[in-house]
């Protein structure tokens, strides 16, 4: 009986790994081998190994359009870093108050935020607003829009985590004469560290991989982000798949590195976040 069970699990292992391999790994191998082929070979779109690995494809991609991919990386990194910074600070403060104080103001705020989780952005009026305050096509404007759009999700995570922090700590600090802000800064914010890690990873991946919003709110030759460059490459290199896949790889690598470093943290963090959310 026992033996039969363990054989069943081994078969499960094998079938599971094979399915994983064909469904999730093969597309990735496909990108990799084709990024290393020359043009003629890559356009056959096969899974065969390259005859001669063409490492210069990657150099080529960087050189394209006067090193525009470097500009794009710079923009994407600035956009991601500042948006995530803003989101962490603003949403932690809001989530803290929404969870601790239950009155009419926080109820209204909470309802608006939850509605924001579902409703998509009204795109053209957003551009109109940005233009009115002279932030359209600027980096600060783009950062503010990303913050606004990710705020509901981020507040939700912080609010959920706040409920696990005992209120007695704050009360003690007040009796000792701390100001509301220093209580938050010195006591609450350090305790929020686990959820902050989740927020940083999830928001960074979302914003770095965002294509739609930069397409609308950050157009212009100087204002490229990596996803928009990738999309432009699609038109430019429609007949040289090797360049296209080399670009795909270059853009995926930063996320892959994050994934390899934080592998378990990401999955655990998401599990924790979704349970409490």
């Amino acid at each position, binding site marked *: 009986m026992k033996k039969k069970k363990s054989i069943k699990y081994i078969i499960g292992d094998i079938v599971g790994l094979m399915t994983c391999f064909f469904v999730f790994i093969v597309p990735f191998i496909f990108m990799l081998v084709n990024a290393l082929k020359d043009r003629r070979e890559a356009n056959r779109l096969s899974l065969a190994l390259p005859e001669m690995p063409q490492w210069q494809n990657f150099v080529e991609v960087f050189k394209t359009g006067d090193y525009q991919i470097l500009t794009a990386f710079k923009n994407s990194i600035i956009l991601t870093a500042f948006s995530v910074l803003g989101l962490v600070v603003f949403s932690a403060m809001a989530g803290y108050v929404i969870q601790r104080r239950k009155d009419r103001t926080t109820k209204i705020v909470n309802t608006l935020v939850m509605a924001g989780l579902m409703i998509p952005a009204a795109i053209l*009026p957003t551009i109109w607003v940005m233009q009115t305050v002279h932030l359209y096509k600027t980096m600060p404007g783009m950062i503010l829009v990303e913050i606004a759009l990710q705020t509901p999700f981020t507040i939700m995570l912080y609010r959920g985590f706040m409920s696990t922090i005992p209120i007695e700590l704050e009360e003690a600090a007040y009796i000792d004469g701390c100001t*509301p802000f220093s209580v938050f800064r010195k006591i609450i914010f350090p305790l929020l560290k686990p959820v902050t890690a989740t927020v940083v990873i999830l928001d960074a991946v979302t914003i770095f991989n965002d294509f739609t919003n930069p397409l609308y709110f950050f157009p212009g030759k100087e204002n490229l982000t990596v996803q928009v460059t990738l999309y432009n490459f699609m038109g430019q290199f429609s007949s040289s798949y090797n360049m296209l896949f080399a670009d795909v790889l270059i853009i995926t690598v930063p996320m892959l590195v994050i994934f390899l470093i934080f592998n378990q943290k990401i999955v655990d963090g998401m599990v924790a976040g979704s349970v409490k959310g």
Partner: protein
Amino acid sequence: MNKKKIYSSWFLAPSMIVFSVFFLLPMVLSLFFSMTVWNFNGFEFCGFDNFIMFFKEDSLRIGIRNSLLYAVLTCVLKLVLAFFIALFLTSKIKTKTIQRSIVFFPNLVSTVAVGITFSALMHPSKGLLNKCLEFIGLNGVDWLGNTKIALFSVIATDVWKGLSIATIIFIAGIQSIDKTYYEAAMMDGANFWQRLKAITIPLSRSSMNSIILLSFIGGLRSFDLIWSMTGGGPGFATDVMASIIYKQYAAGYYGLSTAGNVIMFVIIAVIAFPLQRFLLSKEVD
């Protein structure tokens, strides 16, 4: 000390200002602008013309149908597949950690990159997918070029990419179920399906609800995958609400584009909010 002073409203101010100016205000403005012919310099009121146009023109109306189809199908497929994958990955198999990581992986690849890769895999004459079909003696399919199939090909790709999140939410839900329920059920001689029906499904209800809502709303809003795989084509076969909003914007019909946005709000308000109510009411604590 009073709560209002300790938990000062100033803490809410920064996020609420940004959220109001760049999300709520545009949303309210869209109700007005959807009834005008406008550009960023001026507007002219035109009543409900934009909405009438939206429902009259086939090329616009198809977006509503496609968006709904897309949302329902991706939602159902992700729910069912993710449930069984999660069940498998919470069982006693040995390689579950590595398999979980592999399943999570597509989540990190950007949607545009996924779109490019799958368009290549679905290439009608050279694509790997058709090569496999030929190998087992079947005729190849024009995955993205056939108007009847294209939308479903994009939906399948969306499921491939979105499966990871749904699976992780399910794993969390299934792991939090008290093991003693299963022990008691085994004692009473309940078989696998009975345990599934009586314990796992009802007790992972809240994960199920999150997945339904997340993927349904995500499906209604979907844009980048469709845009990078088919651009709405062939013809208008894969146009969804979000791609129509973009096309009308690119063509300079700002009023129509904004009306598309408002229709999306209405669809979400009419379907998603009651759906959420319904799902929450069914949840067992």
